[in-house]
């Protein structure tokens, strides 16, 4: 039970983070860094999507595949059917979610390694289809000239990086708020139960298949939205944007950040998106460094950065709460 004081502290931190995030475009002027921030937000939406799937204990390597579905859908809906951006954006999320619903009902029966291997095959399959279905996806050279996003009450399209930033931030915050509420709701508890022990969860009344399916559909919906955002931000998509390594990247963001809290994927996205920029000088060793960092994290910090921060924060909070006032009894237990 978190003491009342630390819950306020958390609220303040969240508000500060949101305000800070809102002010980014005003003090970051270089287009390059704005580009990086926009990509961070898009990656964060996708990493959050994967987080809810991981929360039910299912590790998916097909997240980039669902991103591809969203990206191609959004591009073609705006290019071929001239739908307004907002409609195409939502439809691309819904399409990815529909595919997840169709597939999930079947593949979520697979346990552990078999589910991982299936999603690996699924991602490669989507990659092959996006290379060969030329009419639908433009084949190897993909789709060019995707228009910048336009919003109903906003004049003109969100051409500049700064304008796009606010759209990406809004989508990110909505996704975060929705997941945060969901995680604190009974459904959040259901997901944790199914993750920790599917057998016990079923023996106490949860329907594991339904819980995993809902999480898989929501996660894929967010992946579809992320795909649409990336299509309209980069304005050009090709099969090579959605390879297996992209799925690994989103998984990495969760693991390095710490997949057991919502802060994990966000921190993971903040770390991994700009990382290649810092490795530019070590070009030849960049691939080796990336692999090494991954192995070291798995070895020494498997629960990710947030768990490390979490532990240190808890240590500080405990230190603060231990009674130094003479004679005050240690609060036996804190009735919330």
């Amino acid at each position, binding site marked *: 039970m978190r003491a009342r004081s630390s819950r306020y502290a958390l609220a303040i931190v969240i508000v500060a983070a949101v305000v800070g995030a809102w002010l980014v475009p005003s003090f970051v002027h270089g287009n*390059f860094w704005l580009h990086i921030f926009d*990509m961070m937000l898009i990656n964060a939406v996708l990493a959050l999507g994967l987080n809810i799937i991981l929360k039910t204990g299912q590790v998916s390597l097909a997240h980039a595949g669902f991103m591809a579905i969203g990206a191609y859908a959004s591009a073609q809906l705006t290019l071929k059917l001239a739908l307004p951006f907002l409609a195409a954006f939502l439809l691309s999320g819904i399409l990815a979610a529909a595919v997840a619903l169709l597939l999930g009902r079947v593949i979520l029966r697979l346990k552990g390694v078999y589910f991982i291997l299936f999603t690996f095959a699924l991602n490669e399959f989507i990659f092959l289809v996006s290379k060969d279905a030329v009419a639908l996806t433009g084949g*190897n*050279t993909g789709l060019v000239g995707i228009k910048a996003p336009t919003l109903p009450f906003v004049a003109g399209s969100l051409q500049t990086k700064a304008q796009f930033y606010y759209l990406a931030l809004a989508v990110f915050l909505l996704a975060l708020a929705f997941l945060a509420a969901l995680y604190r709701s009974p459904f959040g508890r259901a997901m944790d139960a199914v993750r920790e022990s599917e057998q016990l969860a079923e023996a106490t009344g949860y329907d594991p298949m339904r819980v995993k399916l809902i999480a898989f559909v929501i996660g894929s919906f967010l992946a579809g939205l992320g795909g649409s955002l990336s299509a309209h931000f980069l304005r*050009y998509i090709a099969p090579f944007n959605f390879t297996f390594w992209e799925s690994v990247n989103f998984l990495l963001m969760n693991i390095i950040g710490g997949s057991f809290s919502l802060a994990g994927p966000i921190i993971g996205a903040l770390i991994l998106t700009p990382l290649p*920029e810092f490795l*530019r000088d070590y*070009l*030849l060793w960049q*691939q080796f460094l990336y692999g090494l960092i991954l192995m070291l994290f798995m070895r020494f910090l498997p629960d990710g950065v947030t768990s490390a921060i979490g532990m240190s924060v808890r240590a500080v909070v405990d230190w603060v709460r231990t009674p130094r006032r003479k004679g005050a009894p240690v609060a036996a237990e804190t009735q919330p």
Partner: protein
Amino acid sequence: MSCLGGLRAKLGSAWKAGVALAALVVVAGAPNATYAQGKKAELKVGFIAALSGPGMSWGMGMLGGLELAAEDVNKAGGVVVGDTTYTIKVIAYDDKYAGPPAAQAAQRLVSQDEVKVIFGPLGSVSMLAIADTTESNKVLVLSNSYTMKALSKDKPYTFRLTPTTAENSDPMVAFIAKDLPDAKTVAIISPNDESGKEVQSHSEPAYQKYGLKVISKEFYERGTQDFVPVLTRIMAQNPAILDLDGSTPVDSGVIMKQARQIGFKGKFVKVGGPGVADSIKIAGPAAEDLYYYSPWNPEEPKTKALTDRFEAKYKIPMNGLGIFFYEGAHMLFATMKQTKSVDTDVLRKALESQKEYMGLQGRYVWGGAKAYGINHQWIAPFFVGQVRKGAEVMRTKIEP
């Protein structure tokens, strides 16, 4: 920014061939800031290509060509543009042969490093990914890439230095048709990637035009090593010629070896993609009589001097892209000198109106109005080579 040349030195000279990537700047350690008030100034030139991963040897070839040209110019005191002499500083970024990293690299070059000219990228996907950034910032792009979509009227600042099969296949097929009068049927095998479909769409009409019938078009996935099943399918129609299209030198070598093993008696042709040394090494005798597109004549003295200089510095063999980027860089510097300006609008118009450029290889002209709607395609002289007893023999030179 530590330059990669230093990195290689740190790792010791016993190092294997194939790694060296020196962004050597003659004015080593020149302060980054432009100290341009007086006569001296530094012109930063951007470069994007696959400098890691499978496409690395192509990307390094391009970068090497550019750097050697920069080296020449800087050795000669810099580019005199009006009243300022510029020393050239190359800033190279790796795009891992993919769209998003290329867009990110272009964004960094344009807004962080404030370059006005970018050489590269290598692949079509990267080419299309950076177009938005470069065109909106009026940045001159001198690229490679195969796709028809690269050049268009609404991309005034985008040029292509390497001729594609759209330009080469017609004259080359004409020569081969004359050289092999009795060959009437052709099969084309190409990788299922961005070059594959494009190159096939150029070579097929060329073959038809010169009376050769394309009886089979096959694709294989990148990374395939056993081509025998697909070759068995092709052999069933027993074509006289097997066109290796845009396959990499390594894949081409393996395809030729395996085709001979299962009894292919016809001739091999490679219309797209330079670099045949690897193919000969891997295919051995199977590469006999291979007709191939060669951007240069390796024995021609001036070219030989350049390739030797490249190998001495980068410890890897030079490939065709290096030659185009060497000549292209010199052409650009000469145009700057001639127009007395580094403004990309001035340069753009100068390039479009440039009648010809006499380079190491001969006459280069700008073309492509018919194919792309804009004269931004550099058409270069090239050679049709043939493998005779393991040696590269230049059969003819084709002038634009």
